[in-house]
């Protein structure tokens, strides 16, 4: 393992410190328990808090700021944060209209946020993101995983919250966006968790992992490495099948947002090549890609790979996707 680190135990704090100093105009870092908030506390709106294991940067701290999150609680690498973090963050950002937690659907995150919510002295609601359609047979699982689609949920809910909308309205929009979003990931290499010191899984030069999760969890199946168009075509099929199985229909104008997300070690050049193929294939299925996002938005440390996310837009979602946002990792119109 070669990484730019000092002591494994200090990675998180040193990195958070760097983030906070680099974006001192946007965020404040609070330590022990660890959480980050907007520099300037927002007033009179639902406070939106997300969080999860670290190693997915810029998720979530990179999305703190006007139009998106009020606070983020970073756990250790790939490990859910703990309830004391959420409680302290909520205490700091609560602005009279309740707390909305946006939580990726992993047992650890769900339970830790749940315990926080139970202990919270404020009204709260939770949007569980579960866009990963890789896990086919849902009776075998505690539910679909939340992956890159989480960014779209955070953006849209964050936008709505700025308008002064109620906690219920924010939760409803979050659930809708999550429902209209599906993702699937492919890994070419494993990530290496610093504390483990070696790759999470072994994979040869002729294999890929289809349906991989953002922690390097093994996916649907190990497949033979093949050309990009074939891989992307399988991703597109998986997503369309998922919408069909869940009876989610595109809106009238069939507009969709296509997010091609790098897991950390895949060059932008390849991400755009994948975007090219994915957009073409979705178009062939009658879906108009009218919004797009290409880059590293929900990573898995140094994993080489990509996830394809499609969000079926309607006018409301589109409006909130397009609205101004000012965060470290996403900035539009301000």
């Amino acid at each position, binding site marked *: 393992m070669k990484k730019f680190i000092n002591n494994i135990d200090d990675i998180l704090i040193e990195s958070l410190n760097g983030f906070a100093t680099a974006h001192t105009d946007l965020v404040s870092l609070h330590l022990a328990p660890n959480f980050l908030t907007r520099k300037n506390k927002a007033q009179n709106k639902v406070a939106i808090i997300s969080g999860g294991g670290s190693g997915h940067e810029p998720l979530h701290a990179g999305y703190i700021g006007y139009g998106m999150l009020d606070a983020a609680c970073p756990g250790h690498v790939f*490990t859910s944060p703990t309830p004391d973090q959420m409680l302290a963050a909520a205490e700091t950002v609560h602005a009279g209209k309740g707390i909305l937690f946006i939580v990726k659907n992993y047992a*650890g995150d769900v339970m*830790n946020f749940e315990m926080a919510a139970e202990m919270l002295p404020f009204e709260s609601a939770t949007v569980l993101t579960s866009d990963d359609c890789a896990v086919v047979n849902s009776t075998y699982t505690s539910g679909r995983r939340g992956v890159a689609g989480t960014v779209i949920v955070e953006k849209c809910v964050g936008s709505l919250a700025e308008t002064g909308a109620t906690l219920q309205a924010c939760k409803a929009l979050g659930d809708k966006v999550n429902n209209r979003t599906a993702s699937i990931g492919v890994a070419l290499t494993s990530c290496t968790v610093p504390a*483990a010191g070696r790759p999470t899984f072994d994979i040869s030069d002729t294999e890929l992992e289809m349906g991989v999760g953002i922690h390097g969890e*093994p996916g649907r199946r190990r497949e033979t490495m093949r050309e990009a168009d074939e891989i992307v075509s399988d991703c597109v099929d998986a997503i369309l099948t998922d919408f069909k199985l869940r009876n989610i229909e595109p809106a009238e104008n069939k507009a969709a947002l296509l997010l091609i997300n790098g897991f950390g070690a895949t060059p932008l050049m390849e991400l755009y090549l994948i975007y090219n193929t994915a957009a073409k294939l979705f178009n062939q299925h009658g879906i108009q890609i009218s919004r797009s996002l290409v880059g590293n938005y929900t990573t898995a440390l140094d994993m080489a790979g990509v996830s394809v996310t499609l969000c079926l837009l309607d006018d409301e979602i589109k409006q909130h996707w397009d609205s101004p946002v000012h965060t470290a990792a996403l900035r539009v119109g301000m």
Partner: protein
Amino acid sequence: MKTDFIINAAKAVQQTIITNEHTLESLDREIGDGDHYINMKRGTTAIAGMHIELASLPPAEALNKIGLKLLSTIGGASGPLLASFFMAMAKMLKENGDESNLKFAEAFAAGVQAIIQRGKADIGEKTMLDVLIPVADQFVLLTTQNCDVKLVCASLMHTAEQGMLATKSLIATKGRAAGLGERAIGHIDPGAKSCQLMIEAVCNLILKE
């Protein structure tokens, strides 16, 4: 059970986790995300470091403090589950009394119930519950029958081991391994393993006394 014992047990538990670094780390790498060892190390080390503040507390309060500390140190799935265990165990001891082994067994069972409720899982789903549920049942059964404490320990260690080994042939339906389907078969669940190790460490401590 005295708080002194709890403090010693915490050290033994930390020790067994650290001794089994490689095993725990590998198991969670195989069917999870590889952090179970480090999570457990962080939590058990924090507990082992609490001996001074625990020393003067009655067992129920000590266990509650341990639960809260685990809640804010482990993280992941195992954090809230193990925290719920200790907090529920503490609550039961407080309400029900702590004057017999049976009371401890009942408190242990209440802790396991809390895990079931928090994680919405049950036996056979390839989790720590495959160790904890049979151990709780056996613990209550044997202490109801007023068995000798050394015999109880030997039996619980055996039950824990059986439960842990049984996870090997299961498909996971809870936790991270749930995404794997058939591919989880052949691998022991890391949480089941760490629970078995902790039970073994505590039982061995009693046997040595």
